[in-house]
């Protein structure tokens, strides 16, 4: 027998050690985390990501709900997703998820959130943005007012505008003037109140063509904006005659801020300046840009899992996995002896590689996802069983050790390949189904099962074969005389 290729064994050991390092639940050094170049910089972290059903939280599935007979434009779904994302981010949660599902659905996952009403209103409120003439009396933020376009009763529910953080004063000024105006927006009222007055709406969100976010040389954040042609003329005339007065930005009848008009703003280009923090400025820019969603969204389903239930699920799954796999390891060792022991080593590597991949890709683990992983580990030994059974047959029919090993691997291969392929086909169907309907639990199962099947090709076929060859090379004669060690 020719000497087995030692580099293979070395490669397997190195991969196993690397997987172990990643899979270990330790604080990984920053340089290691930064190697994950395929992930957005802010999220580069070597850690397991748990789905909502494991950490607790609220999941909302939204669907585009255009009025009868009306189609929405291509790309507007992505705009809607971005708006929803920005609104969700304003809730200040750790790692919320906003993803498009199929062509007309958006799934929103809010860890730790309990009140679906608040979340749903934040997400789907089709906010109406108005620029309102406030005369010489600025309105405090969060005041609810009535405008010429209607009163607060026209707005359903409480819309979270995120204005609580926008208490700084602002000045509306033309570019390039950047000096922040220190005009007070009136005394802070403790309770926002509805004043009886009807305010005149000068512009609405529909008149805004473009909104940016910029920083001046003085490190002040400003929000440059651009109006549509028609509105530009109106705005120019209006600003010319109302210099020194207040123009309030109102979202769904709730005042966000009231900058002063410093001078006439011609050409429809202006900017809002003030002592904002980056967050405030971004928030305001988003509200100006995305005051309204491109289409109404309907809530198709929502569900919430309590955090304690999630923790319980994690603990139970780990326990079930450890117990189940221990039995499998023991069975393989007892039933197939030496090769079984080698398959056990491969199975442990299999578990490590899978865990490492979950952290690297990253894959968000759900309860069915963990079940899929445990199941795939239990069935990962199938390939080895096929091989070892074949090996035993060949040994019994009188073939030499080395020949029996090679035949065992070669002849078992078609069955292994066909079985794996059929599993992958089913996973693809499950994945497609899960993606289209926001059934992330179905998707979770499909992903871990499919990934496991692929990893298994490496561990059960390549790694085990290398181990068996090495052992046969090192102790071939000894083994040939003691076939019981091989399970025969």
């Amino acid at each position: 027998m020719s000497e087995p290729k030692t580099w293979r064994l070395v490669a397997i050991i190195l991969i196993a050690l690397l997987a172990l390092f990643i899979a270990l639940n330790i604080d990984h050094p920053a340089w290691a985390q930064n190697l994950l170049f395929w992930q957005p910089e802010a999220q580069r972290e070597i850690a397991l990501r748990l789905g909502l059903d494991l950490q607790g939280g609220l999941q909302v599935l939204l669907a585009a709900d255009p009025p009868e007979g009306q189609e929405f434009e291509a790309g507007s779904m992505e705009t809607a997703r971005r708006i929803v994302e920005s609104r969700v981010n304003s809730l200040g949660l750790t790692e919320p998820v906003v993803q498009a599902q199929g062509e007309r659905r958006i799934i929103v996952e809010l860890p730790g959130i309990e009140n679906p009403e608040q979340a749903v209103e934040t997400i789907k409120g089709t906010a109406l943005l108005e620029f309102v003439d406030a005369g010489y009396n600025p309105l405090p933020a969060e005041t609810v007012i009535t405008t010429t376009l209607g009163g607060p009763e026209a707005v359903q529910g409480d819309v979270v505008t995120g204005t609580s953080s926008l208490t700084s004063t602002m000045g509306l000024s033309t570019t390039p003037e950047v000096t922040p105006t220190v005009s007070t927006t009136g005394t802070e009222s403790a309770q926002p109140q509805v004043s009886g007055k009807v305010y005149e709406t000068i512009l609405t969100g529909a008149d805004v063509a473009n909104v940016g976010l910029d920083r001046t040389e003085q490190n002040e954040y400003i929000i440059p904006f651009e109006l549509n042609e028609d509105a530009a003329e109106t705005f120019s005339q209006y600003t010319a005659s109302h210099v020194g007065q207040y123009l309030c930005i109102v979202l769904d009848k709730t005042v966000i801020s009231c900058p002063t008009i410093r001078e006439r703003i011609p050409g429809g280009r202006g900017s809002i300046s003030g002592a904002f923090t980056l967050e405030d400025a971004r928030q305001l820019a988003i509200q100006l840009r995305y005051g309204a969603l491109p289409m109404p969204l309907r809530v198709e389903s929502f569900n919430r899992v309590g955090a304690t239930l999630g923790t319980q699920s994690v603990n139970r799954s780990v326990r079930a996995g450890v117990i189940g796999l221990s039995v499998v390891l023991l069975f393989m060792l007892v039933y197939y002896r030496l090769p079984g022991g080698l398959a056990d080593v491969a199975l442990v590597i299999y578990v490590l590689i899978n865990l490492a991949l979950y952290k690297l890709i990253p894959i968000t683990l759900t309860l069915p996802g963990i079940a899929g992983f445990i199941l795939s580990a239990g069935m990962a030994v199938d390939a080895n069983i096929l091989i070892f059974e074949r090996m035993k047959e060949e040994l019994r029919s009188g073939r030499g050790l080395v020949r029996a090993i090679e035949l065992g691997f070669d002849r078992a291969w078609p069955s292994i390949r066909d079985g794996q392929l059929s599993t992958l086909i089913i996973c693809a169907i499950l994945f497609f189904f899960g993606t289209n309907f926001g059934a992330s639990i179905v998707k979770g199962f499909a992903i871990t099962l499919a990934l496991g099947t692929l990893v298994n090709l490496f561990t059960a076929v390549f790694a085990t074969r290398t181990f068996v060859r090495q052992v046969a090379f090192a102790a071939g004669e000894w083994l040939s005389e003691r076939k019981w060690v091989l399970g025969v």
Partner: protein
Amino acid sequence: MFNIVEKRRWYFIFSGILIALSLVAMGVSYMRYGQPLRIGIDFTGGSIFVLQFEGPVSEGQIRDLFAEFGLESAIVQPLGSPEEHRWQVRTREVTAEEVGELLTALEDQVGGLNRDALTFDTVEPAIGSEVARAAGLAILVASVIIVAFMWFSFRKVPNAFRYGVCTIAGMTHNLLIAFGFYALMGIVAGWEVDSLFLTATLTVIGFSVQDVIVVFDRIRENIPKYRREAFERIVNRSILETIHRSLATQLNAMFVMVAIILFGGTTIKPFISVLLVGMVSETYSAIFIAVPLLVVWEKTARRRAAAQAAA
């Protein structure tokens, strides 16, 4: 040589009884609930709440409160032991706005809730029926692809078509038994069809070919090896040669699934259970149904050919 194929009539009878029992379970479920399998809110729409109260509350209190919100037909059931104060409430679809009010009212009028353990799920009826349609399609597509795959793998074997059909027979057998089991558990324990059940069904379809493939592979290999032997003997030989592997693999899969059922998360127990039943049925049907059927087909075809030659 131990002859498995010879006793095929007994396996067919045994499977017939199992399938009949499955159909009975589905029939009983249909009479009781109007559905052969109890369909959950994933496919019909509606809401389910799991409420963890901090102290004892009565079923009537909960029911009355839901009725105040126009949810008179709410089904209120205790979960776990009485000391846990855990209740499940199923209603028609509740909107996001109502949930908040409902929970506040529950706390005010019924008893303190442990919000950390609070779980609820709402599905709109419209998406439910859409999901149901897609689920049916997914099952159909999966079956067709798997059978086509079988046929492709064995295209060079004489009568490849028969292998495909026998695989379908085994697959149908497994699905009927898995469905029957679920219908039974629906009657006994209130299990309902949800998207995880669909996942299990598709997985059973996928695994329906795992054992069949191994035996068929061996038949393919043995046909040229034992040219003189009758087909029935070759088939029997192939089964015996592969049965160790089938059992060992099945055992390992069972180990992990039983571990998940006994020790794993409660919400996936029905899912794993139906998967377990489907996979045990799969190993059984591969050896005792699908492969013997192949022999029956072969014999019938031969008898016909002989009759034609004689005529």
